[in-house]
């Protein structure tokens, strides 16, 4: 059991999450992938907190969870709004404006 193991797990989880954000086209699934990244962050925070023997890591993780709840609520409202207007949440179709 090394700190290293937790960090590597978190790094893998982070990479999977980033892949999901970029590869998925369903808005809801992109949000889920972002949750994966946030979980990677939480693993890091708790492991580092235990390593440094400070509770700050856990407090930080708690804030991440609370804010994630707010973010997801808003995000799903946005997805719902889009669905209502165009009957699809496929992100590749949400492309009226070309940059």
């Amino acid at each position, binding site marked *: 059991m090394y700190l290293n193991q937790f*960090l590597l797990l*978190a790094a893998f989880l*982070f990479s999977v*999450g*980033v892949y999901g*954000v970029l590869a998925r086209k369903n*808005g809801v699934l*992109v*949000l889920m992938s*972002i949750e994966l*990244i*946030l979980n*990677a*962050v939480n693993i*890091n*925070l708790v*492991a*580092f907190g235990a*390593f*440094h023997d*400070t509770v*700050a*890591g856990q*407090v*930080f993780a708690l*804030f*991440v969870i609370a*804010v994630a709840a*707010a*973010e997801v609520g*808003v*995000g799903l409202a*946005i*997805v719902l*709004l*889009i669905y209502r*207007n*165009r009957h699809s949440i496929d*992100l590749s179709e*949400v*492309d*009226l*404006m070309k*940059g």
Partner: protein
Amino acid sequence: MHAVLAAAQTLKAPDLDYFALAPEIVLTAVLVGILLLDVFVDETRKYLVTQVAGLGLLVSLVPVVALAANGADRSMLGGAYVVDNFALLVKALFLATGYVVLLMSSDYIGEGDYYEGEYSFLLLSSLLGMMVMGSSRDLITIFVALELLSIPAYLLAGWRKRDLRSNEACLKYYLLGVLASAVMLYGMSLIFGATGSTVLRTIGREVGGSVGEEPIVTLGIFFIVVGFAFKVSAVPFHFWAPDTYEGAPTPVTAFLSVASKAAGFVALLQLVYIGFFGREEVWGPLFWVLAALTMTVGNLVALRQTNVVRMLAYSSVAQAGYILVPFAVAGSNPAANATAQTAALVYLLIYAAMNLGAFAIVMAVARKTRSAEISSYGGLFTYAPGLTLLMSVFLFSLAGIPPLAGWFAKLYIFESALDAGTAAAVTLAVVAGLNAVIALFYYSAVAKEMWMRPVPDGDTTPIPVPPALAAALAFTAIVVVAVGVYPQAFARLGDLAQLTLR
């Protein structure tokens, strides 16, 4: 139960300095007030909510001024929350920006079928997040403040609920914003892990010491800078910005391109100057590349735009590039360090005034033409000479033409680069200079359209400018001209507002 009660007795309440927190407390009270007022006011008198919100912003400015007059640096919660001159200056900037945006939007929101009360509520809550950001000196507070300012901004971008473009703007902004904060959080977790603290001052000490050599510090800094590069729409993380700016309601676009971007820069200033200062070899080159790319790409793409809002969007991307220049050169030597901080701050303040002004004109013109195409500005001078003159002032200020404020802001950027004196810094200054020339082309293209071209449809009825919008225009124009004519006072403001470093 007994254990809990015993514990409760030993709990020592934190020392909160209520005077230092007064601006935030007043703003929170106003927030709650307008939320309640919105419930009890009937549909035809929603403008009352906007008026109370505007008044509330001005009232929040009072404690900021009082704190500035008092002058003492205040720190609480173990250094997590600091009220110094820097914090007060940016708080004043955010409040003023918020007030101008509220002035700009009152007619726009009132006339469309928007939710007027909630609009002011969300605008003010985003401002509350920015106020907190100005004082945050700890990773957790920075993160929470960032979310508090971003989440209302995501919602505001989608305020035209039934417009597909507004929906798209909202979704893109939201997804990329959330991704950016997740990436930034990952970086923060690494920095926390390396230093064992969330307080920036402690992090700064550790990063400057032996821990700073650890590779995870490098990675943490990288991820945090990338996360904020999204927020300030630096190239290559800018692609959400033009779409979001075009699709969002115009006053919201003004707000995003000024206040939200300024908040991102404020957070970066604090992180870089207090937290990461010991590792300038990591973030120096990173900012150098970001600055050079952002200026060049922003300006080159802006050249091809035919829509004023989109042109201003790319121009604001390019302007972010200029603000990144002092970050790139800050680590070179102590003199450059101080100048760079002042330069970034002064640029932020001046950019706020001139960009808000330009957007106010776009809104005024769109009231008549209902278009934001550059061609619809043809012959504006013949029927709206006042607006034409003001638009020219704002555009040439953005371009950095001498007697105006933008010129002075750019001068400061160049000075910071030359103070650094290294080859890289001078190269960056040259890149910035070339970009200023490129920018002149597209700014003057709009001016040419307004002054020289004929009116496209021959309709020369004057444009009615509502008083609130006129007030916003007057305020921003006065700042742009006054600072340009008498810059010394402004520079002194920037010098005074240095971050309390250690």
